[in-house]
């Protein structure tokens, strides 16, 4: 097999393998680019539905390890799964359980001694945004790390796609002239956006 042929096959099979990711990354960019188009109408049902709201008390000393506090809340609430935790202010601790289809969020109101847990209704814009934005190796979960590896593979796939596409263009003499023009116009416009911002 010649390199030219290998390159064409690589371009094709890589595109086929990562097809769904590219599609989802493409269409999920729309709610980020045009958030107003995807805002729910005023008469639609609330996005978050209360699962339970109950009295709860847990001491939160200053400088406490938030991850440990979060783990305790998760145990006491009878929840499971990988979660993130942060404290937006002195009065509450927020936990979130990212999930593509059914994310959950928990709010512990420290001053009110109250635990509030909600499930998110399925809505396409939020679902697409959650797929688009998910990544990173910070969660203590093997599956989350595996997803992050796939995100890296998609990025590498995109770079390989670009490189193999450039090679195919270069090996097709009949399109070189217009190709140069397209490349120059693209880089020129991109530079304009960079420096005229």
């Amino acid at each position, binding site marked *: 097999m010649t390199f030219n042929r290998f390159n064409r096959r690589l371009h094709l099979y890589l595109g086929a393998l990562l097809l769904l990711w*590219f599609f989802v990354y*493409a269409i999920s960019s729309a709610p980020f680019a045009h958030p107003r188009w995807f805002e729910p109408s005023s008469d639609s049902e609330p996005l978050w539905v209360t699962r339970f709201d109950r009295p709860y008390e847990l001491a939160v000393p200053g400088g406490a390890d938030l991850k440990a506090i979060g783990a305790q809340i998760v145990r006491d609430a009878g929840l499971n799964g990988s979660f993130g935790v942060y404290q937006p202010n002195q009065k509450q601790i927020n936990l979130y359980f990212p999930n593509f289809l059914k994310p959950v969020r928990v709010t512990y109101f420290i001053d009110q001694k109250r635990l509030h847990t909600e499930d998110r209704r399925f809505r396409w814009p939020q679902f697409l945004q959650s797929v688009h934005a998910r990544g990173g190796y910070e969660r203590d*979960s093997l599956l989350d790390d595996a997803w992050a590896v796939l995100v890296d593979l998609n990025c590498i796939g995109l770079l390989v796609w670009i490189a193999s596409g450039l090679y195919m263009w270069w090996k097709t003499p009949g399109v070189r002239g217009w190709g140069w023009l397209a490349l120059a116009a693209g880089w020129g416009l991109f530079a304009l956006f960079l420096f005229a911002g």
Partner: protein
Amino acid sequence: MYLALFFMPWMLMYALSTMLMNHGPVFRKPPQFAVEREQTYTAAFPPDAGPRQMAQQVLSDLGMDGAHGVGKPGPGGRLTINRLDPVAPRRITYTPADGKLIVERQLFRAPALLERLHRRRGFQQPYLIDDAWGLSVDLVIAAMVLWLASGLWMWWELRITRRLGALSIATGLALFGFFLLTI
């Protein structure tokens, strides 16, 4: 092919920035600023002016009009304006009490530049250049969908690649489906 060559810088930027953002703790650092200039400045804002209008006036007086963000005024009416710019964002702090204005430039870091470009939005500020960027992002989205459709058609037309291509698509679908249901 020509569309892909034209949008190559965007795709390169999205691939590299996504990889950096996927490794956030390694590459993400708090922004550092260097004072660019410090001057006296007195603004006469209309009595009912909100932070947005005040920021607009300050930027206009400085000849730095463009996309920006501004929060509520701080103690003593201190106004902090973030002048959004992909290459050189600036922070402008105006303290009406002592008539002092400081312009700080964010020190350049390539990962931060890529992340700013990735997160840059159009149609949210009254500036043509930002809307033009937003339009270019919309065109990239349309181009990606078109590449997928035309790629599928080309794959189907090449009989010799049908079986392995179908296997690649099925593997991708299965992997995606697995993660959709498990995380």
